C-alpha cells in the first residue's frame, strides 16, 4: 500500500499506521495506531481517532514552527475527495430505468470499487504523512506530533480557529508573491543555485505530467464503463437469440472490461499518485528554499541596517546582534536545507524507480491475462 514513499516505518522505536478508517457521509475517521519504545510516550501501544482536519492542523503548526524552517515539511495530505464517484453514483441512480438489471448491478459494482479505491488512496496518503514525520530525526520529536498521536480526546479545540485560518490563507498569498523573491535573489551558493533552477523547472513539468496522467486514467475508466454497457446489451441479445454465440462474446468482453478497469486503477496508483505526491513534495522543497531566501533577505537587510547604524553611530550593538542573529539563522537554514534537499533527491529517485517497475510489471501482467483469455474465446467461437 505504501507506494509513493519508501523506507518509512522501519524504525521500531516509533511505528505508526492507519489500520482502518470509517467513512461517514463526507467525513472520514482515521484510526491512528502507534507502537513505540520511546519513553516520551505514556503507553507502548495506543490508538486514537483522527479527522482530516487534525492532520492539517498538525502540518500547519509544523510549518509555522521557526525551528523547522530549514526542514522540508512533508506535504499535507489532500482532503478526501469522493466527489467524482458520488456524482457518478447520482447519475447512475437517474439512469437506472434505462438499464437492464444486470447492467445496473455491474455499474454499481464498478462504482463501489471506485469508492473503495478513493478510500484506500486517502488512507494511504494520510498514513505516509505520519510516517514521514516519524522517520525524520527532528520532526519525530515534535511536541505537537506527540499530542496528535497520543491525545485521546477530540483535537478540535486545538485546531485552527477562524482567525488562524485566515492567517494561513494570507500567508499563502504572501508566499506566492515571494516565489518571485526566490527567483530574484542573488545566490552565492552553487548548490542552492542549482537546486533552485532545478526545482522551479521540475515543478512545472511534474504538475503538467500529473494532469496528463489523470486524463489518461479517466479515459481508461470510461472505456471500462463502456465495456460494461456493451456486455450487458450482448447479454440481453443472447437471451432473445437462439444462437449461443453472444454468450461467449459476453464472457470475453466482461473479462476485457475487468482488465481495462484494473489497468486504469493500477495506472492511477502507480503513476498518477506517484506524480501527484512528488508534485506536492517538490512544493514543500520549494517552500524550504523560500524560507531560506527570506532568511537571506533578512540577513542582507540586517547588514544594511548595521551599516546605517555605524554611519549614524547609533544603536550599533543592537544592529550587530541582529545581524549576527540573521546570519546564524541563515547558516543554519542553509546547512539543514542542503541535507534535506540531498536526501529528498535520493528519496525521490528510489520512489520513482519502485513505482515505475511496479507499474510496468502490472501492465505486463494484465496484458498477459487478456492475451490468453481472448484466444480462448476466439477458439470457442470458431468451433461453435
Amino acid at each position, binding site marked *: 500500500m505504501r507506494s509513493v514513499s519508501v523506507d518509512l516505518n522501519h524504525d521500531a522505536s516509533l511505528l505508526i499506521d492507519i489500520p482502518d478508517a470509517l467513512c461517514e457521509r463526507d467525513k472520514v475517521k482515521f484510526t491512528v495506531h502507534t507502537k513505540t519504545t520511546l519513553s516520551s510516550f505514556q503507553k507502548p501501544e495506543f490508538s486514537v481517532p483522527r479527522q482530516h482536519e487534525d492532520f492539517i492542523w498538525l502540518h500547519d503548526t509544523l510549518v509555522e514552527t521557526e525551528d523547522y524552517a530549514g526542514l522540508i515539511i512533508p506535504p499535507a495530505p489532500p482532503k478526501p475527495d469522493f466527489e467524482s464517484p458520488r456524482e457518478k453514483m447520482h447519475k447512475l441512480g437517474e439512469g437506472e430505468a434505462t438499464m437492464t438489471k444486470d447492467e445496473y448491478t455491474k455499474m454499481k459494482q464498478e462504482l463501489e470499487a471506485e469508492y473503495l479505491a478513493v478510500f484506500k488512496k486517502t488512507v494511504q496518503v494520510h498514513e505516509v504523512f505520519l510516517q514521514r514525520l516519524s522517520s525524520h530525526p527532528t520532526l519525530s520529536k515534535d511536541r505537537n506530533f506527540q499530542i496528535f498521536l497520543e491525545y485521546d480526546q477530540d483535537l478540535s479545540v486545538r485546531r485552527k480557529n477562524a482567525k488562524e485560518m485566515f492567517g494561513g490563507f494570507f500567508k499563502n498569498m504572501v508566499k506566492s508573491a515571494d516565489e518571485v523573491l526566490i527567483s530574484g535573489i542573488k545566490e552565492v551558493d552553487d548548490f542552492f543555485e*542549482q537546486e533552485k533552477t*532545478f526545482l522551479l*523547472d*521540475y515543478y512545472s*513539468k*511534474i504538475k*503538467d*505530467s500529473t494532469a*496528463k*496522467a489523470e*486524463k*489518461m486514467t*479517466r*479515459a*481508461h475508466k*470510461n*472505456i471500462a464503463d*463502456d*465495456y460494461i*454497457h*456493451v456486455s450487458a*446489451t*450482448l447479454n*440481453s*441479445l443472447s437471451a*432473445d437469440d437462439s*444462437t449461443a*454465440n*453472444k454468450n461467449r*462474446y459476453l464472457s*470475453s468482453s466482461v473479462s*476485457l472490461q475487468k482488465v481495462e478497469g484494473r489497468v486504469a486503477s493500477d495506472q492511477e496508483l502507480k503513476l498518477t499518485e506517484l506524480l501527484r505526491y512528488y508534485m506536492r513534495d517538490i512544493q514543500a522543497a520549494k517552500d524550504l528554499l523560500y524560507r531560506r531566501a527570506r532568511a537571506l533577505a533578512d540577513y542582507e537587510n540586517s547588514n544594511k541596517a548595521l551599516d546605517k547604524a555605524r554611519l549614524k553611530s547609533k544603536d550599533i550593538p543592537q544592529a550587530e546582534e541582529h545581524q549576527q542573529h540573521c546570519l546564524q539563522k541563515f547558516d543554519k537554514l542553509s546547512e539543514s536545507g542542503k541535507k534535506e534537499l540531498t536526501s529528498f*533527491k535520493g528519496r525521490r*529517485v528510489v520512489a*520513482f*524507480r519502485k513505482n*515505475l*517497475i511496479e507499474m*510496468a*510489471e502490472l*501492465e*505486463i501482467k494484465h*496484458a*498477459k491475462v*487478456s*492475451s490468453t483469455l*481472448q*484466444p480462448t*474465446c*476466439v477458439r470457442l*467461437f*470458431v468451433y*461453435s
Partner: protein
Amino acid sequence: MADTARDPPPAHTDFQELEDGEDLFLEPAVIQESGPASLPAEDISANSNGPKQDSLFDDDPEDLFAEATEEVSLDSPEREVLLSDGPSPAITPITPPTSVITPRIGLAHDDMFTHSSFDEIEEEEGGDSFDMHISVSDPEKVGDGMNAYMAYKVTTKTSMSLFKTDEFSVKRRFSDFLGLHSKLASKYLHIGYIVPPAPEKSIVGMTKVKVGKEDQSSNEFVEKRRSALERYLMRTVKHPILLKDPDVLQFLESSELPRAVSTQALSSAGLLRMVNKAADAVNKMTIKMNESDAWFEEKQQHFENLDVQLRKLHASVESLVCHRKELSVNTAQFAKSAAMLGNSEDHTALSRALSQLAEVEEKIDQLHQDQANADFYLFSELLGDYVRLITAVKGVFDHRMKTWQKWQDSQLLLQKKREAEAKLQFTNKPDKLQQAKDEIKEEIEELEGKVQQGERDFEQISKTIRKEVSRFEKERVKDFKMIIIKYLESLVQTQQQLIKYWDAFLPEAKAIS
C-alpha cells in the same frame, strides 16, 4: 336462372383456370432460372386477369373463398401448409391438373417452402455456387468546387457463369449506388424481398470533401464511405435474387451508367419519397391486421426486440470508440509531458527512464488509435449496417400488411357488389334490369379477379418473407460471428504489443540506481 348461370361447369372452367394457374406458378421458378426482366408479381397479374370473366361463383362468401383456395391448391398441393390457418375449410385438390404441374415444382415436393429446398432449387438452376468478391477502391476526386464528386473503382472478381469475364472494374459515384438501391427497392421491397439499404448520405461530410479540405476528418469520411459501399455491394450480390437482377449486373459491368438524379435529397423525387414515407407511417397505424399466422407475429416481435438491442449496442460501441480515441490523445499528451519531465530530471538514470517511459507511451498511443479504428470499422459499422437492415426487414413486414389490406379491400368491395346484385333481383323494372345485371356481373367478375389476385399476392409475399427472414438470420449469425472473431483477434494483437513494449521498458526502470 341466375343461379344456374352462375354455377361454374367445374371441369371446363377449372381447366381454364388451371392454365393460368400453371403459368402462375411456373413463373417464379422460371425467373429464378434465367434472371432478367420479368417480375413474379407483374406476370401473375397479367395472366390471371384474362379468362376470369367466364367464371362465376356462388355469392356465398365462404364458398367463394373455398373456390379461390381450391384454385390455388390445384396448382400446388403444398399450399395447404400455408393455408391451414386460412379461411377455407375444405380443400379438394383436383388430381389431373396437379400432375401436369408437379414435375416443375415438385423438385422438392414436400418441403418446398422450407429454406434449404429453395437453396437446392436455386443452386440447381444457377449452376455455380456463390463465388464473388467485390471491392471498392481508389477514391478519386473528380471535378472542382460544389460540383465535385468522388469516383470509386468497383472491381468484381468472380468465376460465376453469370458474368462475361473473371475480373472487371468500373467507375462509380455515390449517387450511382443510391440509384441502384432505389431501383431494387422499387422492384423487390413490396413483394417481400429484404433489399439491403444503401449507405447514408452525408451533406456535411461531402461538402468538406468537395471544398477540398485535405485533412484527417475528410480522409476518414472517404474511407468510412468506401468501406460502407463495399459492404453494401457484397450484401446485395449475396442475395441470390438480387444478384441476377439486370440493374445489378449493369451496375457492375457496364462502363457507362445513366446518372441517377432522383436520388438527390432536394429533388422532387426526394420530396415525393418523404411524403410517401409519412403517408406510409400514418397508414401503418390504421391497418389492423388479423394475423392468422403465429410465425409472423413471433418474427415481428423478434425483430422489434433485435432493433432495440442493436441500437443500444451500437450506441455503446460508438461511445467506446470515442473514449478510446480520447485515450489515444491523452496518452500522446502524457508522453510529451513525460519526455519534458525526463529532460528536466537531473538524475541521469531516472532521466533516461522517464524518456523511455515517454517513448513507450507514444507507441501505446498509436496502439490505442489502431484499436479504436478496429473498434469502429469492425464492430460499430457492422452494427450500424444491421440497424438499417432491420429497418428494411420491418418495411417488408409492413408491405405484407399492405398487401393484406388490399386483398381485404377488394373482398369488401366484392361483397358490396354482390349485395347490390342481390338487390337488383327484387327491382320491378325488367327492361333496365338486364342491363344493370350485366353491368354488375362484369364488375363482380373484375372484383373476383382482384380478390384472387390479392390473395395470391398475399400468399406470395408471405412465402417470400419466410424465405427471406430465414436467409437473413443465417447471414446475420454468420456476419456477427466473423466480425467478432476478427475483433477479438485485433484485441489479442494489441495486448501482445503492449507486453512487448512494457517488457522493453522494465530493464530501464530497474536500471535506475
